[in-house]
């Protein structure tokens, strides 16, 4: 499923959940409106995970969360992990921009929403920039960031440890491989090379 365009965003008041309407394209070329939802605190959690207060970057991470997978146990620093993740998003974006210009250039956001038959509150929300709406409702909460940073650091440390263990196992295999190679070489040197085999045929001797 490709993301073509982020159409609008609104905070659903009953559940206090952020609703983002996106136009998406399926592998068979058909298009429809996708409702993406997340809790407003999600941005604060991602802020802890990537150790950043850059709301634009965090909103981008959220909008592409179902299109670009995060490396959850990365042993990279938070800044490097964010940079890598945004790099992946940029690649996806550049592909989608080309698709979008081909298929939906003539329709306005309101047209798309009206045509799909979504409730009026989503159509009203299209008047505002969805990214600004998300930023307004999902302010970074320092208390949550502080709580989540410990877990984020622990997971990075676990990731590093895991990678360290893999390296150790690799090193062990390398030692074993080298030993095996050496022993094979020794065997090869010990056995004289056979260049030809002399075959002598004997007639069966009959007894009696």
């Amino acid at each position, binding site marked *: 499923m490709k993301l073509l365009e982020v159409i609008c965003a609104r905070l659903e008041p009953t559940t206090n959940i952020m609703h983002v309407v996106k136009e998406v394209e399926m592998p068979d070329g058909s298009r429809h409106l*996708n409702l*993406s939802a997340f809790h407003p605190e999600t941005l604060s959690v991602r802020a802890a995970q990537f150790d950043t207060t850059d709301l634009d970057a965090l909103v981008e991470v*959220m909008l592409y969360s179902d299109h670009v997978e*995060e490396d959850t146990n990365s042993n990279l620093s938070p800044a490097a992990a964010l940079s890598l993740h945004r790099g992946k998003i940029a690649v996806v974006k550049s592909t989608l921009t080309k698709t979008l210009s081909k298929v939906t250039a003539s329709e306005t956001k309101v047209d798309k929403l009206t045509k799909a038959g*979504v409730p009026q509150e989503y159509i009203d929300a299209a008047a505002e920039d969805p990214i600004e709406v998300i930023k307004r409702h999902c302010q970074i909460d320092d208390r949550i960031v502080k709580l989540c940073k410990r877990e984020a650091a622990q997971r990075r440390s676990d990731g590093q440890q895991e990678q360290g263990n893999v390296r150790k196992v690799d090193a062990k295999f390398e030692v074993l491989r080298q030993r095996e190679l050496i022993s094979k070489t020794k065997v090869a040197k010990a056995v004289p090379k056979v260049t030809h085999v002399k075959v002598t045929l004997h007639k069966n001797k009959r007894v009696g």
Partner: protein
Amino acid sequence: MTENRYRSDPRRQQGKIDLNDIIIDMHRRLRAGETALRIGNTAIEDGNLVVRNGDIVVSLSDDTEVMRIVHGDVPDIRFFATGVDSDRFGAIWGEDVSIDLGSGFGIVDTTQMHVGVYDSTVPEDHVRDGGSLRLLVDDAILEYIPNNGDTDTHMRLNTYSRVDPFKEVITFKGRWDNLYDFSGLTAMSVGSVDVPAGFGSFTWSYVQTYSTTIAPIVGLVNTAGLVDWTITAMSTASFTVTWSGTLAKTLNFWNPRL
């Protein structure tokens, strides 16, 4: 030899108190006194330790009781931590009880060990006011029972044990957090969402990015009738469900982390 000689003492035979008995008694009392002094002089640098009517009481220098080991049929260690909450105390205690399982299942005699937080108004009544752990012969219960009228919750292993139909039964009393993930290490992500008309798919992004695979188990409620639908994407950060048509739906999910 000596004992025989004492026993044959003519004064003892006359009903008088033997001097040796007096010395033996004195020696016993001296030893008891010495032990008490040892406890008093070596274990306490600040505060008080008192043995009173079989209970051992530890108090601060101003006589505020902070710990009591209660003797009797219901032995009990009570902790009266000082600080911000004087309405509750902690305790570890044990009792032998008969529990009536009701509905013809009979009465079960069991030893019951408790660890928990209790209302400090009447300590001996052990009125639960918070978390507690109850370990019985055939049952283990981790529970939260507030004393303010709020609903209690529990996790119970081998519920109503001894009664065949219930053996091995596990009970959870409470509910799951709807659309909220406390940590990326939690075992389950649960939610229910109403998707209005006009949409052909729904994506939920977890509050936390999960540390390992989280498997979406989704139920789609479409009151208008049959509909084609499937989960079209899943990751540790989100999942997407896509369906045919654009009628309003309710989507319930119950995703375990693996």
